[in-house]
C-alpha cells in the first residue's frame, strides 16, 4: 500500500487583488468576481520565476516543515505544463538543485487540473511495484505567464502555486483505488496553440496565449464529474454517505457549487480552498488538502477529483488515519 506522508506548498510573493483587477477592468465589480468566480486574491509568479523554481521551494518547505530527510527521496514526479525548456526534463534540474541523490528517478508529466490525482496514481504504482519507497510528487504551474494581459476572465480565475507531496510506504493517508479518464477530442478547449512543435512560431495574436472555452469546459465537467465520483465510490466499495469529505479541483466557485448541488453533497462535507489563491491548476487539490488538515477536517474517507485540460479526469479515495 502507498500513503501520503506529508504535504507542503509555495505561493509566489506578488498578489493580485480584485481591487487591482477592477481598476484595470472598470466594467468588472469586486462583488461579481468574489461572488461568481469565488476568488479574492491570486499569487503571481515573478518574471524570472519558473514553475521549477516554485516546485523547489515547495519541496524545501516539505523537508523543513515535516523533517523529511531528503536523502531518502528516490523518485521525483513533476507535474507541470510550464517546463523550463522543451528539453531536458525539469525534474532533472530539480534533482540537482534540491541536492537529491543521483540514484533518484525523475520525470515530468504534462497534465493540468487532473495532474495531482494522476501523480498519486503514478507514485502508488512505483511504490506498489517496489521501484521506489519515497516519491516526491511536485505540482507547479505558472498559467499567469500564458494569459494575455487583457484577458479579464482568465486573469480573474487563475493563480500560480506549487505543492510538494511525499508518497511513501507509510503515512497518514492510504491511497486507495482510482478512476481515470481521457477524451482528447477536447484538446482545443483549453490550449496554448503556439510555441510547441505543432506551431513553433509565435503568431503574434491571441493564439500565443492561454485560450479557455469556458462553456465547453463547464459542459465537459457536468458530463464527466458526477460519473467520475460514482465510479470512485463503486471501485472502493463505499456509499456516498460513507464519504467524510469531498475535495474537487478548485476550478471556480460557480462550477463547484453546481457540482455540489448536482451530487447532493452536504456543505460540511465539501471542502474548498479557492478565494485566497484562485485556480492553481494541478496544485488546487493538495493545497485544499493541506488547509483541510490544518482545520482538522481531513479525516476518514476523502474523495478527491481532478478534471480539465486534455480533457483529462481522475479521482481516488484516500483513507485518512485519525
Amino acid at each position: 500500500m502507498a500513503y501520503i506522508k506529508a504535504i507542503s506548498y509555495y505561493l509566489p510573493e506578488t498578489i493580485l487583488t480584485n481591487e487591482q483587477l477592477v481598476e484595470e477592468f472598470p466594467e468588472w465589480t469586486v462583488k461579481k468576481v468574489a461572488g461568481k468566480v469565488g476568488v479574492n486574491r491570486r499569487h503571481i509568479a515573478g518574471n524570472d520565476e519558473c514553475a521549477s523554481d516554485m516546485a523547489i521551494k515547495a519541496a524545501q518547505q516539505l523537508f523543513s516543515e515535516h523533517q523529511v530527510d531528503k536523502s531518502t527521496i528516490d523518485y521525483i514526479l513533476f507535474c507541470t505544463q510550464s517546463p523550463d525548456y522543451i528539453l531536458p526534463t525539469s525534474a532533472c534540474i530539480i534533482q540537482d538543485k534540491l541536492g537529491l541523490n543521483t540514484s533518484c528517478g525523475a520525470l515530468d508529466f504534462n497534465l493540468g487540473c487532473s495532474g495531482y490525482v494522476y501523480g498519486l496514481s503514478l507514485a502508488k504504482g512505483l511504490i506498489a511495484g517496489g521501484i521506489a519507497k519515497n516519491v516526491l510528487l511536485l505540482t507547479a504551474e505558472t498559467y499567469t505567464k500564458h494569459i494575455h494581459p487583457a484577458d479579464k476572465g482568465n486573469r480573474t480565475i487563475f493563480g500560480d502555486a506549487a505543492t510538494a507531496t511525499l508518497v511513501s510506504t507509510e503515512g497518514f493517508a492510504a491511497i486507495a483505488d482510482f478512476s481515470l479518464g481521457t477524451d482528447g477530442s477536447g484538446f482545443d478547449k483549453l490550449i496554448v496553440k503556439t510555441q510547441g512543435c505543432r506551431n513553433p512560431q509565435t503568431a503574434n495574436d491571441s493564439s500565443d496565449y492561454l485560450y479557455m472555452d469556458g462553456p465547453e469546459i463547464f459542459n465537459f465537467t457536468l458530463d464527466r464529474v458526477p460519473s467520475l465520483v460514482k465510479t470512485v465510490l463503486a471501485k472502493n466499495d463505499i456509499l456516498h454517505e460513507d464519504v467524510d469529505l469531498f475535495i474537487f479541483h478548485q476550478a471556480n466557485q460557480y462550477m463547484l457549487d453546481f457540482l455540489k448541488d448536482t451530487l447532493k453533497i452536504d456543505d460540511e462535507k465539501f471542502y474548498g480552498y479557492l478565494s485566497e489563491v484562485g485556480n492553481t491548476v494541478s496544485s488546487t487539490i493538495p493545497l485544499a488538502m493541506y488547509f483541510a488538515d490544518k482545520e482538522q477536517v481531513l479525516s476518514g474517507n476523502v474523495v478527491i477529483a481532478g478534471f480539465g485540460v486534455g480533457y483529462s479526469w481522475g479521482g481516488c479515495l484516500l483513507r485518512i488515519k485519525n
Partner: protein
Amino acid sequence: MNIKQFVQDFASCFEDTAASEFQATTVFKDLDEWDSLTTLVIIGMCSKKYNTKVTGIEIREAATIADVFNLVSSKNA
C-alpha cells in the same frame, strides 16, 4: 415547457437586473449585467431545470430569450 416560466428561469441567472427587464423578446447580451460568466449560469440552468445540454456556441448564436427557449424546446422534443 412554457415560455413564461422559461423567461423567469432565465431571469434567475442574473443578479442585478430587474425581473421586469426580461421578456421573451429581450436581447439578453445587451443587458448591462451580461458577461461571459452568465453563459455558464444559463448552461447550468438549462441542465438543472430542463435536463438539456446547451453549448456556448448555441448561446452565442442566440439573440433573444425566445431563441434559447426554442433551442431547449427543440432538444426536448
